[in-house]
């Protein structure tokens, strides 16, 4: 076993433990903390694939910012008093949705002819300059649309919050 494989199994194990913890933990804050573990471990997987930029973005956006906002919202709403909030009568539907998504993912991975798409045994590292060129030149419009979605969400949040205040 090469050392990359060793690291892979450690990191993949952490991802799975984190993901399981999100679902199994009784306390919502614990779930959020497990989510951080899972997301950071995924960054480790990206690193093993030599996708440095993606790994760092994963840590910065998901590990640092998004989950903090989730934690923030939960702490301000006193979740500690309702530990059973994670469970409900919709359990079978959630399990079905999760199973369906998992099977679609596995089918996609198994069914795709990776070699025809240009996949090789060797990882070819994409320099960050090339990534930037592709993102901001070839795919500039989808990129801008994504930020548009965020702005719509932001304005929506402000409208909702203001409406509750009665202004």
């Amino acid at each position: 076993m090469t050392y990359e494989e060793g690291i892979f199994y450690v990191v993949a194990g952490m991802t799975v433990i984190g993901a399981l913890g999100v679902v199994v933990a009784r306390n919502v804050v614990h779930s959020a903390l497990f989510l951080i573990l899972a997301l950071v471990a995924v960054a480790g997987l990206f690193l093993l694939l030599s996708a440095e930029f993606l790994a760092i973005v994963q840590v910065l956006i998901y590990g640092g910012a998004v989950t903090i906002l989730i934690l923030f919202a939960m702490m301000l709403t006193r979740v500690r008093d309702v530990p059973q909030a994670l469970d409900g009568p919709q359990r079978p539907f959630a399990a079905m949705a999760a199973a369906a998504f998992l099977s679609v993912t596995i089918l996609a991975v198994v069914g795709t002819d990776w070699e025809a798409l240009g996949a090789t045994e060797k990882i070819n590292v994409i320099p960050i300059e090339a990534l930037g060129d592709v993102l901001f030149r070839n795919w500039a419009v989808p990129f801008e649309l994504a930020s548009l979605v965020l702005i719509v969400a932001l304005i929506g949040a402000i409208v909702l919050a203001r409406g509750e205040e009665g202004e």
Partner: protein
Amino acid sequence: MIADNPWVDALLRLAVIAVLLPLTPIVLNYLERKIFGRIQMRLGPMRVGPHGTLQTIADTIKLLTKEDLRPSSADRWTFELAPYVVVVPVFLAFVTLPFTADLFVRNLSMGLFFIVAVSSMSIVGFVMAGWGSDNKYALLGGVRAAAQLISYEIPLILAVVAVAMIAHTGDGRGSLNLAEIVDGQGRVPYLVWQPLAFFLFAVAGLAEVYRQPFDIPVAESEVVGGPFVEYSGIRWSMFQLAEYGTTFLLSVLGALIFLGGWNWPLGNEAGAALQVVLIVLKTSAFLLFFIWMRAAMPRLRIDQMMSFCWQVLLPFAFLQIILNGLVLVYDWPDWTLGVLSGSATLLAAYLTYRGARQAAEPYSPRFTTVTYERVS
């Protein structure tokens, strides 16, 4: 490569950081108390050792041997893991920080980005500490810390991005590699070309290490120490280690990207010994700034802190990015950037001054003139 085996190599490199980083708070704490003493017209620690030099070592021993307490109602794992989540990112960030041209652990091609991303992880630790302690003050402090660190991270990152955008490299401009950024500065440090980014970096850096005037997350008189209320002994000292470690990290980073790192104005080829002297001097300047601000500034209110970030720092950060973009696209000479960024800095300083004046204005009850009539 220090060793052939990648595991041994990685372990050796980590050991260097793990040994050196715990020493920084011991030195920094002593310096801070001495400088504080001078500013407040007293001597600072004098009793333990010559000029009190052994004081912080004695304090460290005291802290490490103190009982490690945990409140019975605290959330066990969250409480106990929080200090690690705060400390580990600081260690990670030092992995890629070059001190001189040859003195670094590992030179990553995206080092600057790596440092910024990794150090953002420590916010999670503050929130964990605040929530896990099961203490109202700790929770308040944790929420304040999260709000402040997330907000001020944005201008900090944008200031750093502004530097990375126009960094001179061998084949054009723009680099995230810290060694390349330093080499690209040559005789003239980037402080001269982008004073605005420097200003943003310094102010947001102060907020990132929650020092005065941005110390509301840990303010003793408001939240009795914030997220650390319930911590004692070695766990508390880990938070201290993270604070001084981050201060040191930001100082070295600022010295590298704004003050020219191991270069100096008299020529590019400084020898190894001179490089060490230069980086120590430049880092010390930043450290002195951080300590001095703590002694000199009053504390901001939470609304003042927030509006300063979102209404002053953030727009000016975008302004610097836009200026740098114009320089890149139209190939303007560097001095135009210096002039534009400099005048924007003056504008930002004026706005800050005006805001501070308004905030500091004493409450003046409006007296109405009362006239009396003689009662006959």
